[in-house]
């Protein structure tokens, strides 16, 4: 393996700048989505982000704790129906339903998880697959007022009283034709963001490490004081709670819930997203959500022209492709898309951790003299690679018309990378002027700056056209 282009110490100024650039990409992507995409595309994006939350929930159990959970469709369904019922029948606000949904999901997780997780083996898979099968039928029961609450076989519509209040109309995209879906987009992004933060914190600390230890070696974990059934059940309940949250978001987004939306097939979709994105990584769950929604959408589109059998426009093709993906990824890319992305980024940058005394644990600068000059190139690459990856994802999201898709792809890529490339280029030039960069950085750095300037002009023109001229 070739050495990474850039080696930085953890928490050094360079490392921070690199992270800052990444945050900028992410923020740019999120901010521009509701501006650039058409309303129905925003809807798709919303669905993808909701799937990401649900996949993250599955990941907690399957990827981080090594237990097989095949029934998260039911937890999503519970969250969705509780939300629909409280919002529609009791006139609650979505924010008021939120804690209820989290708690109900948690309790369901304990009820299902505790019996199955006391014992080692595939028992959780057994219970959860049965749970997934039984849930869509349970909502049809007339007794106990269940069907009245759930809408029975007809499903339940929820009033879309979630248009933005006037004090939030400044949010990008939240007015005009795309207002409703864009506002829901912002709520979903906010919930997803908080979820990611909380779950990342959880996994990177004592309780999270115990969960990972169980996955990697149960006997070892027990000897070091991890109470296996308690930790497993707790983790499963958190996961169920998160699954219910995804259900709430689903209800919010679709405005309609029905039992047949939450079948075993949805649970399998979650597993597929998990494998596609990357089992046991948080980023993998995000990527997985995007891809599952996209593949589902694409196959629906091409089934009819290919003359394949379809049932309500939803043919078996998606399932066949998913099945193939599962098998191929298990064989050839068990780490999913994220592991491939990590392979790329490990060639670009290496972050060296620090000792408690604040020293890097290995020397940073054993470069050849010539190596210095490659840093500017590396900076440009760093500026280009992530937006290319993001932009490909974006392209895939909007493949309704390939030519428009490719055009939009180019524009969006420019919008994204422009400010970043300019920033990196400027930094390199400043360093050059200060005398700690060789001459050879000048070319690439100027290039990055030029690209950045062009992109920035474009962004301004675009913004003026969109907001001022209201085109």
């Amino acid at each position: 393996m070739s050495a990474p282009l850039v080696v930085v110490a953890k928490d050094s100024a360079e490392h921070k700048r690199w992270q800052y650039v990444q945050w900028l990409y992410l923020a740019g992507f999120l901010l521009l989505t509701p501006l650039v995409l058409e309303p129905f595309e925003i809807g798709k994006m919303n669905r993808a982000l909701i799937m990401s939350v649900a996949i993250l929930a599955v990941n907690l159990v399957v990827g981080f704790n090594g237990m097989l959970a095949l029934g998260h469709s039911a937890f999503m369904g519970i969250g969705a129906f509780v939300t629909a019922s409280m919002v529609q029948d009791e006139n609650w606000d979505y924010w008021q339903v939120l804690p209820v949904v989290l708690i109900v999901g948690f309790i369901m997780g304990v009820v299902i998880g505790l019996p199955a997780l006391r014992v080692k083996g595939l028992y959780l898979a057994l219970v959860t697959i049965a749970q997934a099968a039984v849930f869509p039928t349970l909502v049809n029961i007339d007794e106990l007022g269940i069907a009245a609450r759930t809408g029975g076989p007809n499903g339940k519509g929820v009033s879309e009283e979630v248009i933005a209040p006037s004090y939030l109309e400044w949010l990008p995209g939240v007015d005009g034709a795309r207002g409703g879906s864009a506002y829901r987009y912002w709520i979903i992004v906010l919930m997803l963001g908080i979820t990611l933060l909380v779950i990342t914190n959880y996994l990177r600390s004592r309780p999270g490490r115990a969960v990972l230890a169980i996955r990697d070696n149960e006997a070892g974990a027990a000897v070091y004081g991890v109470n296996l059934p308690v930790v497993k059940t707790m983790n499963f309940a958190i996961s169920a709670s998160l699954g219910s949250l995804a259900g709430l978001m689903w209800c919010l987004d679709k405005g309609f819930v029905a039992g047949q939306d939450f079948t075993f097939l949805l649970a399998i979709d979650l597993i597929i997203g998990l494998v596609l994105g990357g089992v046991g990584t948080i980023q993998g769950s995000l990527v997985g959500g995007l891809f599952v929604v996209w593949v589902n959408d694409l196959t629906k589109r091409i089934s009819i022209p290919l003359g394949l059998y379809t049932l309500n426009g939803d043919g078996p093709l998606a399932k066949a492709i998913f099945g193939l993906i599962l098998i191929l990824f298990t064989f050839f890319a068990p780490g999913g898309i994220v592991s491939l992305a990590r392979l790329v980024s490990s060639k670009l940058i290496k972050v060296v951790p620090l000792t408690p005394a604040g020293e890097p644990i290995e020397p940073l600068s054993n470069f050849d003299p010539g190596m210095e000059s490659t840093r500017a190139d590396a900076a440009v690459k760093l500026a280009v690679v992530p937006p290319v990856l993001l932009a490909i994802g974006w392209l895939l999201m909007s493949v309704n018309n390939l030519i428009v898709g490719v055009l939009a792809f180019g524009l969006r890529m420019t919008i994204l990378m422009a400010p970043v490339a300019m920033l990196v280029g400027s930094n390199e030039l400043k360093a050059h002027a200060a005398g700690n960069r060789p001459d050879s950085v000048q070319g690439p750095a100027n290039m990055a700056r030029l690209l950045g300037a062009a992109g920035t002009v474009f962004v301004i023109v675009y913004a003026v056209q969109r907001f001022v001229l209201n085109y």
Partner: protein
Amino acid sequence: MQRVALLEVSDITVRFGGIVALDDLSFTMDEGQILGLIGPNGAGKTTLFNVVSRIYDPTTGSVTFDGEDLTAMSAHEISRVGVYRTFQNLALWPGMTVIENVMVGDHTNTKANVMSSALRLPSMRKEEADLRDRAWAALEELNLTDVAYSPAAGLPFGTLKRIELARALIANPRLIMLDEPASGLTHAEVDSLAQDIKDLRDRHNLTVLLVEHHMRMVLGISEKLVVLNFGRKIADGDPDVVRNDPEVIEAYLGSS
């Protein structure tokens, strides 16, 4: 010397179907002692470890540690009284980095819970920083800082064995049980490991139950020897006496 035994193994029998892995085994260990437990492969040494750490249930018998009945506890409670072990075939967590492995080693004595961790409360952050420093110190003690941030998967067997030792040390154990710590080491490494074990015992006030096939090492550092054969204890006592016991010689010659 009027010392009360720290670990007392009484009448432990373990059966797996027809196999009697341990047959009415009893012995005691004093505080601060290094006790060598030897015997041919399949004699039941690892099974005893598994009984003490409550991974196996003994068919009969009991184990007491400092007056507490270990057989009445479950596996995750054993670490609370300060009993730790390493594993013959390793039980590390390959999906985590080496330093994280060591940090989990002190799971029992740390407190951060799901809430305080998810919200990164100040108490949790302080504990985490302190834990990381102590894990680093444990790695330093065993010369492992070079690999601190490498994934535990894929390191050489000898290094992994030392990581297991570091993981047990961070928790300030009272009794540490080492299952064949020298397997896979070179001769020079074995000698330095023997010295390390003695030093660690003195520095950390450990009591060490050592299972090892490497006779020179066992005889070099053990203060008491217990010999098993087919699950039965065939000798027990001072190493110099035990090593000349005809039955012990017979067991070893007969087995290889």
